[in-house]
């Protein structure tokens, strides 16, 4: 029961991509700057949602700590921007260090002077941290809700740590990026934001293809096997720990990229990215979109965030009710998510409830006369 039932024509697929690319190129002229910026942010959030879908939808690991990796990616990007544009400040280090009397760049920020290092750090550091946390947890066969609780606890560890360290990372205030410069342009400027939007859109598509590639083939089959019956996977001779660690660090890396893109578009990274509610929200995007469907994760992230900003503008108090209701509704009534529901038998079952008869499926008419015409 999947979408593959309707095989799309190659021409349709091609024209879909052409329209999509045209929309992405034209978006900056179609949308006002404010909305474009929001769309860019939500698209970058859809990358972290893809990661959540990989670990939760495909492997069955509900992580409530994706905010750690998201924020790590953001901090890497923000620190690089701060360092490169700090030439006018004393000691050639970012301005905030002076507030706390720090005169020398802490040693672990030293490599971030290099753009190449930063480019790799943005996704490799979160992936390594995720791999380490994952390995320590999975090695002991801690799973299910225990895994979720432990990831949440790690999230709090990181949150408290980042919140408390003024001298190293500016604590609660976070790192601002919108007044920093890259390629001689202000990061917060309109033209730069347009470029970031395009980069984000391209990376979302790239991440989607990457995730599709990951869940395809034997690796993906093992992931689904772990989700559905882990002991059986183990008894067949596979070591689930390795696969779980790999997929968890892939999700961590995706979260890092997402966090970096989000940071440059929102203009700040702060420990607020590591609060408990934000990380749980990432799960609900995937749950509403449809877990186990990669496109569902992307659409869920973009649409829910857009709805959030629209509702919060109109009725600030009601968003919490709506969000809480969404959690309950999607879990009790729509466990497959919207896209999963559409791909399954959802719409037809719904039509049937309203009295529209469902077409009875029969075998395709057997070819009585085969090509040779022997039966005649």
């Amino acid at each position, binding site marked *: 029961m999947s979408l593959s039932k309707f095989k799309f024509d190659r021409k349709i697929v091609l024209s879909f991509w052409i329209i999509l690319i045209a929309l992405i190129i034209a978006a900056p002229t179609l949308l006002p700057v404010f909305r474009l910026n929001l769309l860019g942010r939500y698209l970058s959030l859809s990358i972290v949602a893809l990661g959540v879908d990989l670990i939760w939808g495909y492997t*069955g690991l509900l992580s409530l700590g994706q905010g750690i990796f998201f924020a790590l990616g953001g901090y890497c990007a923000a620190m690089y921007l701060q360092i490169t544009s700090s030439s006018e400040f004393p000691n050639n280090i970012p301005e905030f260090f002076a507030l706390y009397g720090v005169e020398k760049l802490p040693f672990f920020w030293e490599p971030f002077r290099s753009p190449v290092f930063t480019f790799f750090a943005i996704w490799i550091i979160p992936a390594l941290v995720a791999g380490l946390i994952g390995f320590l947890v999975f090695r002991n066969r*801690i799973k299910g809700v*225990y895994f979720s*609780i432990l990831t949440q*606890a790690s999230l709090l560890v990181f949150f*408290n740590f980042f919140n*408390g360290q003024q001298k190293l990372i500016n604590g609660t205030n976070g790192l601002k990026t919108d007044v920093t410069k890259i390629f001689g342009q202000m990061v917060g400027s309109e033209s730069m934001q347009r470029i970031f939007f395009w980069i984000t859109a391209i990376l979302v598509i790239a991440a989607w293809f990457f995730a599709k590639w990951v869940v395809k083939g034997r690796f993906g089959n093992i992931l689904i096997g772990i989700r559905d019956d882990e002991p059986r996977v183990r008894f067949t001779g596979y070591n689930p720990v390795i696969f779980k660690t790999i997929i968890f660090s892939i999700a961590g890396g995706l979260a890092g990229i997402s966090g970096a893109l989000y940071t440059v578009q929102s203009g700040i990274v702060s420990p607020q990215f590591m609060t408990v509610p934000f990380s749980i929200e990432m799960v609900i995007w995937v749950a509403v979109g449809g877990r186990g469907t990669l496109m569902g994760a992307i659409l869920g992230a973009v649409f829910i965030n857009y709805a959030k900003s629209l509702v919060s503008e109109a009725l600030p108090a009601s968003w919490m009710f709506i969000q809480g209701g969404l959690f*309950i509704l999607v*879990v*009790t009534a729509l466990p497959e998510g919207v896209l999963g529901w559409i791909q399954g038998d959802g719409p037809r079952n719904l039509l049937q409830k309203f009295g529209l008869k469902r077409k009875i499926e029969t075998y395709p008419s057997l070819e009585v006369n085969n090509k040779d015409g022997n039966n005649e």
Partner: protein
Amino acid sequence: MELLLDSLFNGVAIGSVLLVAALGLAIVFGLMGVINLAHGELMMLGAYTTYVTQLIFKLPILKPYYNSYIIVSIFLAFIVSGVVGILLEKTIIRKLYGSPLETLLATWGVSLILQQFVRSVPLAYGTGLVISLLIGLFLPTTFPSKIKESINFKYFKFSSWIFAALTGVLTGSLISSSVSKLSRASARNVDVTAPSWMRGQVEIIGTAFPKTRLMIIVITLISVIAITLFLNQSAWGMRIRAVTQNRQMSDCLGISTEKVDIITFGIGSGLAGVAGVAVSLLGSVGPNVGGNYIVGCFMVVVLGGVGNLLGTVLASFGIGIMTDLIGAGRLLSIWPDMPLPLSNTINFFATTSMARVMIFALIVLFLQFKPTGLFPQKGRMVEN
């Protein structure tokens, strides 16, 4: 010696708040395998109940009994949180047994709704709603069995809900008209003031202890003893333990697992309410008060081992004492001339938030050696 006693007392005080908060969670999670992320919000309801009770006891009729409001509010908080918990079980959690991750998400949704509810609904009408829930859920069970078994029982049920709704609206408007502080919704934090006999300090062996802290320890002690007695001595306690060990078999032997679930969840939620009273004595009460405790509570349950009260007790006191030792930098004063790198490390972690970092890290480290906590449940299933 005095320092050690001081540290021990502080640790026990922190630990007892954790314990009373985690006790309900340990029962719900340990016995039913249900992750209730709304547990913190049930605590918040208990804390708000204390606040409402306090204001109602300031009314002229109840003024002479004002000093005993805190005792009354413990029972009321138990009932309020218990009723909300039972409603939660009946409407949502029941559908999700066997899928803990889904329960986790749904209860998170409930917690968001409860937080916003406290912000945007006046407390007076909130009280009225709880009263009507209480009547609606429990009035039908008090009917004589003759009515219960009749075909028309659903009409009786329906009319009792109407009666409940009317009573709720009446009490709500009554409270709102007599106590002006409760008639408007507000997102601001509120303060519970302890009655006069609980203010001040008591001196034990030359050290002064604040009375509110002692009161919390007493509340915790009573809750732990009561719940242990209930689980080990009463008939329903035995049924709960039976269902915990083997649900199918208990069902086959005629134990109503449905009722056991409701009772377990109700008691667990009620204990969250009691914890809320304790929390309200410590600081101001706001819609987010529960969120500060929930992760700590889960850590206690995971560390103590699921389904084991002794583990929960030891884990929470362990965490409490460690928090105090690390957070207040007491190790330095106990051992003043330790080597410099060590003392630098200790100073680095000597704040409340960094102590949390350290303790969570220690817990994760501990779970490397004992993945199922202090007192694991023994079993021979693959999954165990």
